[in-house]
Every structure is written in structure tokens, then in C-alpha cells.
């Protein structure tokens, strides 16, 4: 008996420290996990670091990367077909979480988080509350946030100075500022923003909220036919019509950022994600200023803030190995590295950490960007279309069609917004 007791103690002593607490990064050594990624700034930064994961865990990664449209098409095909070839994918919870969960396309991360397949150092609570909530459907954790982002107001400091202008104090002043810019410097387009179908809601949301609007009425019924909403839509559409580049109805973030980066546009409301892309262009780190979208006339400021996340396919046969990847990719160490390359972290500890702050303090635009992100994280909302649990893309499409009518001068904002009331209410679950 004594011998057995001694043997047990010896055996325990010989177990490696990392296995004693039930977690071993090498548990799935030799397995292969299939990733499908959307080609965002996060993905570009991660691509060069994936080997570090294989070195740490022994898990091989097979990665497919597509641009957003192709990504969505391929992802839907694989998920719809119930393919077990897909293990990990990127997801935009504000757009698709309830629908994907209803279809069984997400693996349940709740049990994985609680089990011994989770590194004790992982700290799920370190993700900011709002971002954590974005991936929770009902009681189920469906994804982990990889970043935080939202539309920010970019403007050309040098052009403003040349024309004797200040950043508009509120949204109402935007048109007047654009008019003055047009008069002062005819070589530069005063304003650019998205006009392409399906993409408008994201930069438009702040205009609606700051103008006192909403996407639902006091009874919670979906509608765009509200005074503040109409005002926001009118402001957004009129700005593009009067002061935007020609052909804006075919523009999404790629065209807007190209115009801004090439120095052809003086102001825009575009994704914080594109900041690092913008800074790579010569001269932009000196002349671009960045901040939160100006508030409404009464001081209301409710910006849009969202996050991309990583999820595991509900049909994956390698959910635990895939979970190891999620833990690594959203862990503190990786986020800290990415943060110093312009990817806004979803972890509070990294966001508030010395490294990120030191990086941000290296230049004026970085500091402004960090401050703006901090503000939208605290005051923002992720709802930028009529509320629906499962038909968000359709709601965004209807919203875009309303805004396009205003941009093209086919209809006034009120008529266009009120004409779709039945359509948007039909989408509500």
C-alpha cells in the first residue's frame, strides 16, 4: 500500500507542470485545423504569425483567405452544405450571430470555456463586456472578438488650415464646411462616404443617432419614418449628392479609402480598421486627423461600434483543436503584438496596456485614433439597421436603397424612408 502511495506521488511529480492543471497546448499535436478568413487588416497581420501557433501546439493550419464578398459566398456555401471541412471562420456578430446560431452553424463555446481545454491564463472576462455580449446568443457563447472597430471621422488637417476651417462642431455644420472647402480648394472633393448597396448602414448609423433618430419607434417597431432618422438620412445623402465624388453609389470602403489616401478627399466617415492602411500612404500621417463623428446639434453622440470575431463551425469534427486556435489568436500575447500594428484590441488589458499606449503616443494620428476608439467603445452601439434577429442583411439592403434614392436625387428622404415601413416591419421576427 505504501509502495502504491509513493508511486502515485512520484508519478504526479513527473507530470509536466502544464499538464497538471489539465491543460496542455500540445494535446492536439499533429492535427490539422482548417481556417477560412476574410481578408481584413487583422488577417493580413495574422498571416505571418500562424507558424508561431504551429510551433507552440504542433497543430497544422490550412488557411483559405478571400475578399469579403467571396468570403461570404464561400462561407455560406460550406455552412449551408453542412461541410465538416471547415473548422474556424471569421464572423460579424452584429450581422449574422442570431441567424448562424439558429441554423446550428456555430459550435457552442460555453462548455469549451468552462472545460479543461481552456488555458487557465486565457481570461474570457478580459474581453470588454459589450464585445463579449456581441457573441452571446441566448445563453450561448458563439464567438470570440478579435478587434473593435467603428466608423471614424477623418479630415485633412492641412486643407482645413489652408481654408481657415475647424473640425465641424456638429453634424449640421458638415454641409457648410463642405461648401467652404469646395469654394476654397476646387481640386479636392469635400466629402466621400459609402453609397454602394448593402454597405451604407455602417457609416450612416452615427448620422441617424446623432440627429436624434433610431431604427425603431417607441413601441419597438422597425421603422425609418422618424424625424431624426429622416434628418440623418437626408444629411448623409445630401452630403454625398452635393459634395461627394461622382459615382458614389458604387463606392464602398475600398474606393473611399483610396480617395482619402490619394489626397483627393477632404473629409470622410470611414472604418477605424482602415487607419493603418491610410497611414501607409505618403504624407497622410502628417496631414490626416481622426476623431469621432461630430455630434448632433443638441450634442447627442452615439457612434457605431462593432467587432469581428472568430467562431468554430458547428459541424467541425475538430472542435477542441479549433478551440486551441481561438484561444491563441485572441490571447493577450497575440493581441498585444497586433495592437502595435494598428489592430484595435478587444481585450481591455491590451487596450489599456503600456505597449499599446506607447505605440499610440509615437504619432499624433495614432493618439487621436486611440482616443476615438476609446470613446466609441464606451458610447457606441452595434445596431445600424432596423432591428431583426435573423434578417439583418435584408434590413441593410432596404436602408441602402433608401439612401441611394436620396444620393441620386430620385426621392426626398422623408418619402423614401417612410415608403419602406411595411417592408422593414415584415423583417422583424
Amino acid at each position, binding site marked *: 500500500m505504501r509502495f502504491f502511495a509513493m508511486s502515485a506521488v512520484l508519478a504526479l511529480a513527473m507530470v509536466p507542470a502544464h499538464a497538471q492543471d489539465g491543460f496542455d497546448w500540445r494535446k492536439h499535436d499533429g492535427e490539422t485545423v482548417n481556417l477560412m478568413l476574410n481578408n481584413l487588416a487583422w488577417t493580413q497581420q495574422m498571416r505571418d504569425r500562424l507558424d508561431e501557433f504551429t510551433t507552440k501546439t504542433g497543430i497544422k493550419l490550412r488557411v483559405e483567405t478571400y475578399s469579403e464578398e467571396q468570403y461570404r*459566398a464561400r462561407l455560406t456555401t460550406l455552412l449551408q452544405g453542412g461541410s465538416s471541412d471547415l473548422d474556424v471562420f471569421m464572423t460579424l456578430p452584429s450581422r449574422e450571430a442570431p441567424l448562424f446560431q439558429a441554423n446550428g452553424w456555430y459550435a457552442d463555446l460555453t462548455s469549451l470555456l468552462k472545460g479543461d481545454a481552456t488555458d487557465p491564463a486565457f481570461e474570457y472576462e478580459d474581453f470588454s463586456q459589450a464585445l463579449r455580449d456581441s457573441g452571446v446568443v441566448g445563453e450561448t457563447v458563439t464567438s470570440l472578438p478579435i478587434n473593435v472597430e467603428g466608423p471614424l471621422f477623418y479630415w485633412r488637417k492641412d486643407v482645413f488650415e489652408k481654408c481657415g476651417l475647424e473640425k465641424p462642431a456638429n453634424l449640421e455644420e458638415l454641409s457648410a464646411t463642405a461648401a467652404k472647402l469646395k469654394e476654397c480648394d476646387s481640386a479636392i472633393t469635400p466629402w466621400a462616404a459609402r453609397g*454602394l448597396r448593402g454597405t451604407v448602414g455602417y457609416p450612416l448609423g452615427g448620422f441617424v443617432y446623432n440627429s436624434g433618430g433610431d431604427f425603431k419607434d417607441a413601441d419597438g417597431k422597425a421603422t425609418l419614418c422618424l424625424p431624426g432618422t429622416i434628418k440623418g438620412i437626408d444629411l448623409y445623402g445630401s452630403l454625398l449628392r452635393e459634395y461627394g465624388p461622382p459615382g458614389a453609389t458604387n463606392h464602398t470602403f475600398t474606393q473611399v479609402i483610396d480617395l482619402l489616401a490619394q489626397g483627393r478627399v477632404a473629409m470622410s466617415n470611414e472604418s477605424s480598421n482602415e487607419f493603418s492602411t491610410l497611414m501607409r500612404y505618403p504624407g497622410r500621417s502628417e496631414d490626416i486627423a481622426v476623431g469621432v463623428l461630430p455630434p448632433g446639434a443638441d450634442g447627442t453622440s452615439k457612434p457605431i461600434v462593432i467587432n469581428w470575431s472568430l467562431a468554430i463551425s458547428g459541424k467541425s469534427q475538430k472542435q477542441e483543436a479549433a478551440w486551441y486556435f481561438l484561444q491563441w489568436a485572441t490571447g493577450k500575447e497575440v493581441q498585444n503584438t497586433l495592437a502595435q500594428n494598428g489592430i484595435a484590441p478587444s481585450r481591455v488589458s491590451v487596450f489599456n496596456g503600456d505597449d499599446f499606449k506607447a505605440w499610440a503616443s509615437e504619432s499624433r494620428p495614432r493618439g487621436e485614433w486611440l482616443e476615438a476608439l476609446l470613446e466609441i467603445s464606451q458610447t457606441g452601439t452595434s445596431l445600424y439597421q432596423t432591428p431583426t434577429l435573423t434578417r439583418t442583411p435584408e434590413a441593410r439592403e432596404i436602408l441602402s436603397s433608401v439612401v441611394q434614392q436620396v444620393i441620386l436625387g430620385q426621392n426626398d428622404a422623408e418619402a423614401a424612408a417612410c415608403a419602406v415601413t411595411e417592408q422593414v416591419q415584415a423583417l422583424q421576427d
Partner: protein
Amino acid sequence: MPHQPQTGQTAMSVRWMMIPAVILTLAMVVFPLGYAVYLGFGGGSPATGFGVANFQRLAADPSFWSALRITFGLFLSALVLQLVLGTALALLLNRYDVVRGLVRTAILSPFMLPPVVVGMIAIVVLDPGLGAANWIVQSLGFAPLLWLASPNWSLLVIALIDTWQWTPFVALIVLGGLQSLPARVYEAAEIDGAVGFRRFWHITLPLLGPTLLTAAVLRSVDLLRFFDIIYITTQGGPGNSTTTLNIYAYKLGFDFMDVGYAAAVMIVLALLVLGSVLFFAGLRKRVSW
């Protein structure tokens, strides 16, 4: 040469040899088509159940009817333009021997370009702010145009892009037809005094009938299921001005994740393609000589 009767063994081995082709056809054609029909009739969807619910929804869906009108508009405008211009180009190539070799290849080359390249060229050339098209328009003293960003003109512009790409293909087919026309008919016509446009209208065009219908069949199949260039340049916009049935079905299936309904739209489109092929094939039988 009279058919030789097959022995039982030969017939059997022929059947065995056909098996790979049959399997391939089943896997690549019958299964996807059958699966689309299954989805279109609500297969696998607890929401609609198996039946005609998706087709009833189609009948009451204004977006579907709008997409159908746009599909037909694009189909007719591009087909007419391509047949007329393709015939004109073929006559030109047939008449002037000097247009040979590299020049002929250059004229005929657009249809060899991948649609992505054509779409990207169109985006660059037709950009309202930076494109060459507006530079030319403004140099001529006219106001710049919105091209693909105009809801009134975008469909016609797309038809013109497709016409630019595919007219040479039609010209190639018509050129083949022209070169196979019997010389004796022209000799007789010349004796009777039929020259110039009269000769073209009363002799060449009727004789080219079967060739033109062959070109029409090939182009109509492509035009009805036209997708790539529209998706690259406008994604169906502005508004719904270039949302054809194909673009609509794509949005339904991949953006709205309404796969069953998207399959129903595609079944209608497949029937349209089949109908157009049968129509032109029937017409071809009537005009053969």
C-alpha cells in the same frame, strides 16, 4: 457504309465503357440540378415545407418581376446590338482582305478576355471622376456622364460592355457563314442586277439566317445567365437598376441566406434559358436552306 450488327459481347463492352461518362454526368449535371429543384420546392426547409410555397412567393414578389424585366431588357438590347454589329463587322472582315492576321486577331480578341478583366477595365474607363470615357466626352464639349452610377443608363452601359466583348464572337460565326455561302447565287444575282444593299437584304441576309440563329442561341444562353460583369461593376445597382434574376438569386442565396427561394428563382431562369434555346432552335429549322 452499312451498320454491322453488334455482337452481344461488343454491345456489353460498349455499355461498360460508357459508365464513366454516365457517372460524371450524374455527378456534375443531374445531381446539382436535381438538388436545386429539391431546394426550390422547399426541400430541407422546415419553414416552407416541401411544396410550391417558394413559387407562390415569386408570383407576389415585386423584386422578382423587376429582375425579370431587367433580365429581358438586357437580353434583348445586347442580343440585337451584337447581331447587328457582329454582322456588320463580319461583312467588313469578309470584304477587305487587308484585315488579316494580327489585325483580325486584335479585332476579335475581346471575347477571349476573362470577364473579371473586362469588368475591371470598365470600372477604370467609366469612372465618372477619373475615367477616360468622361475625359473624351468632356473634350468633345459635353457634360460628364455617370455611366455605371446612373440608374437610368447603367443597364444600357452594361449591355454595351457585353456588346464590346461579344460582338467579335458573333462576327466570327457570321464570317464563317459568309464564307460558306454558294458563289453561284451571287453570280446569278449579279446577272439580274442585284447589287449593294439590295443584294445584302434579299440574298445575303436570308442565306445567313441559320448562322445568325446559331449565334443567337449561343449568345442568348449567355445573356440570360449574365452575372460576372454586372457583379463586378455595379452589384445590381444603383438601386435595382441592374439587378437581373441571376444577381437577385445570388443576393437571396448568399447575402440573405434564403437558399430555397434563391433556388426557385434559378429554376425560373433555367426554364427561360431552355425556352430561348428551344425557340431559336425551332426558328432555325424553319429558315434552313
